[in-house]
């Protein structure tokens, strides 16, 4: 649930989602769910010449299982806080 909560703090930010098929999708984060599925508005694929297939998309729902990375603006994150929360989470007995 940690990363789900983390992504919730990023709603409204511009992000670039890198998929496991190497596609890069830019957009504004609208929502995230417990599976880390991502909804983006105003999507644009990075290499529009290579991927005309998705030129007519205005928004997208990206399945969490196909995401490799979510590139976020460095200023959007308090890395010390995140590191701290992650450490605490890993220490929880599960």
């Amino acid at each position, binding site marked *: 649930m940690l990363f789900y909560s983390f992504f919730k703090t990023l709603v409204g930010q511009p992000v670039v989602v890198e998929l496991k098929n190497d596609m890069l999708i830019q957009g504004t984060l609208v929502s995230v769910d417990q599976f880390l599925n991502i909804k983006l508005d105003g999507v644009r694929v990075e290499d529009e010449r290579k991927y005309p297939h998705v030129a007519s998309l205005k928004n997208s*729902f990206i*399945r969490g299982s196909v995401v490799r990375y979510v590139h976020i603006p460095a200023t959007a994150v308090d890395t010390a806080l995140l590191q701290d929360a992650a450490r605490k989470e890993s220490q929880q007995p599960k």
Partner: protein
Amino acid sequence: MDDLRNKKVLLVTTDGRVVVGILKGFDAQTNLILSKASERAFSTDSFREIPQGLHVVRGDTIAIIGEIDEEKDDAIDWPSVRADPIPAIRI
């Protein structure tokens, strides 16, 4: 995905296929029901639109689903588009 119900959507599958259709239903696993589905098959020498009718798509084969901007979509002359197929998802 509630806002996509009954909208014309474009789907990219994990094997790199592109399908358009009207989203009639879905569930938490993103299994989908698409009506008037049609596959857009891209290649460097051709483009084909293959009608598929009513389709159930299993959730774990889905990469991206999005609402189609019909104005943008109609403005593109799809039969003249040439591109490599989208690569498959690799773990």
